[in-house]
């Protein structure tokens, strides 16, 4: 991006202005994400930097908002921090419970979306796939259709979808459903909803990986006497794995950050981190939200690093650039 030596003075001015504009846009992109980190250590209950924070006085900073994440919802938050206290926190603290729930739902939604999505992507990237375009359009649409519409639809459908606990199927599903055996107010309902929302991401990333995949490798494997299963695990899987993992991470993040469907179809027991944050932002906005936000930013930095690593790995395996 160096200027050619024949650039006129006007072009020089423009060049540096241009770089300035780019810097400003990058600042616009990134500043709002990083700003929450120092703010979450504010000792005062404000959303702003205090004098003490600006002069880097240690007494202006504290971990009190991180502490509230542990103590909110606990009956005796003041007690000595022994094993018993931690076990109470682990079981009762509102945010911890929400985090456990979010992880549990996210995990299952990711597994469901990734397994179904990867298998489907394999079919979709075969040249002989019939009605490819229409089916692809349907499978991607959960990403395009406004989430509020999906949530409203699921709310209507789930509240009328129940199993009877009298037969075997009902008994087997019961622990995943609501007290009366319905999808509304149940973990299974949220898992299904979140899997649906994550599927487009898995499809997109895995088909993108497969588009650079040389189909003759499958024939080569087969001609050497390998069964289709063996070919899949020995040849296909290692090559598309980076795409599958990125897709899975996307699906997980989608679930871990999803609030609208949860607001509509979840019962009072299904608290998740986004739902707690939503309530916090709408009602009394306290810096505790910033503490959660900081933790989430750090998680997303980790996820992004993983995905970038995978992308580079898959780039090495293929000649075509992913962009």
């Amino acid at each position: 991006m160096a200027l050619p030596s024949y650039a006129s003075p006007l072009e020089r001015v423009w060049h540096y202005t241009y770089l300035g504009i780019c810097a400003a846009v990058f600042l616009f992109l990134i500043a709002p994400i990083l700003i929450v980190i120092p703010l979450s250590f504010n000792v005062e209950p404000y959303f702003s930097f205090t004098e003490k924070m600006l002069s880097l006085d240690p007494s202006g900073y504290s971990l009190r908002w991180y502490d509230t994440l542990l103590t909110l919802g606990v009956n005796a938050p003041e007690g000595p921090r022994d094993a018993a206290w931690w076990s109470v926190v682990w079981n009762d603290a509102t945010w911890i419970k929400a985090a456990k729930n979010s992880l549990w739902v996210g995990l299952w939604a990711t597994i469901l979306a990734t397994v179904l999505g990867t298998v489907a992507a394999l079919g979709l990237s075969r040249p002989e796939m019939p009605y490819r375009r229409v089916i692809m359009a349907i499978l991607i649409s959960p990403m395009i259709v406004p989430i509020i519409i999906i949530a409203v639809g699921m709310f209507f459908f789930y509240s009328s979808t129940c199993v009877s606990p009298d037969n075997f199927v009902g008994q087997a599903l019961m622990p995943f459903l609501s007290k009366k055996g319905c999808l509304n107010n149940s973990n299974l309902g949220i898992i299904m909803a979140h899997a649906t929302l994550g599927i487009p991401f898995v499809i997109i990333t895995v088909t993108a990986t497969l588009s650079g995949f040389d189909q003759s490798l499958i024939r080569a494997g087969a001609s050497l006497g390998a069964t289709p299963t063996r070919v899949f695990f020995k040849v296909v899987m290692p090559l598309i794995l980076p795409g599958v993992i990125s897709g899975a991470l996307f699906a997980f993040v989608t679930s871990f950050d999803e609030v609208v469907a949860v607001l509509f179809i979840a019962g009072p027991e299904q608290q998740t981190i986004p739902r707690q944050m939503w309530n916090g932002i709408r009602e009394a906005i306290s810096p505790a939200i910033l503490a959660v936000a900081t933790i989430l930013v750090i998680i997303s930095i980790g996820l992004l690093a993983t995905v970038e690593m995978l992308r580079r790995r898959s780039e090495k395996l293929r000649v075509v650039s992913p962009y």
Partner: protein
Amino acid sequence: MRKLLILSTALTVVGYAAQADVTVMSWGGAYGEAQTEAHVKPFAAKTGIVTTMVDSDNPATPIKAMVEAGDVTIDVASVEYADAIRLCDEGLLEPIDIASLPAGADGVAAADDFLPGAVTECGVSTDIWANIYAYDTTKLTGTVPVTAADFFDLGKFPGKRGLKKGAKAVLEFALMGDGVAPADIYAMMGTPEGIDRAFAKLDSIKSEVVWWEAGAQPPQLLADGEVVMTTAYNGRIFNAAVNEGKPFAIVWDGQIYENEMYVVPKGSPNKDEAMQFIQFATSTEGLQAQAMQISYGPARKSANATEILFKDGKTVMGPNLPTAPANLANALESSSAFWVDKDAELNERFNAWLAAN
């Protein structure tokens, strides 16, 4: 390991069947906390029935879906008066027999002890709360606002105003701010001219209004200095002032009060326990216990007969309740009959008014 899993699954199924816990759904925040301390915990302690409190943005909203799907997961809900009437009319609530409610501490039968309107076909009042407006005494010094009209007087008190986003209580308050007597409000709001007049009054401050939605927001708006005065639920302001020492003052002139109702959704899994809970919570002692937690008035005469002290042990609740005679000088009881009919139409108009710049 596998066997263990199957066994635990079987146990869970049994566990679901044997559960007889009462789940109460309320509004969260200071209010939900008050009901937890005054009703949920003592009830569990007294009866041994596991009782849990869950929060909702508006406990009336999920009831319709639950009942229509036959998937009722809550046993008691704390809902606004108009919602208690509406849900009951639509057959979504269990009827409550007034005769089953305990007599007052002084022995007067429940039917005579409760204030008029406090017990309906499907609901029993848990308290009387009010829409008031409040200001920060450290920011507004010198002349302070005392009437509903002052809220709308930008000349005398410049600065931002907090108002609840929604037609209900806001239109009434606008008319009271325009000098209409409480007795005439609903008659006037039945006419197009009356509604126009209310909106005209709101127009006069529209540019300065910050709209709030959740009950926890107004104290926050005042504390952050985002507004100089705001309408609010009186209990939230009281709690911020007494519990957290915030310098907030309430203006009672132009207050709009109503009953908050405990109801049981139709098909509640533990209906008998739910009724037991309501009988416990709306007894003279139950209502007084709640008034010790938050400044909402008990709807029984017997509960108002003795002086109630706030949980800090020194603040006398009487003058802080919406039902205190001094606070009722210029006050309006919210009309559920009016809002049951007009809610849809007036909110449409309100939203249209709000959206137009």
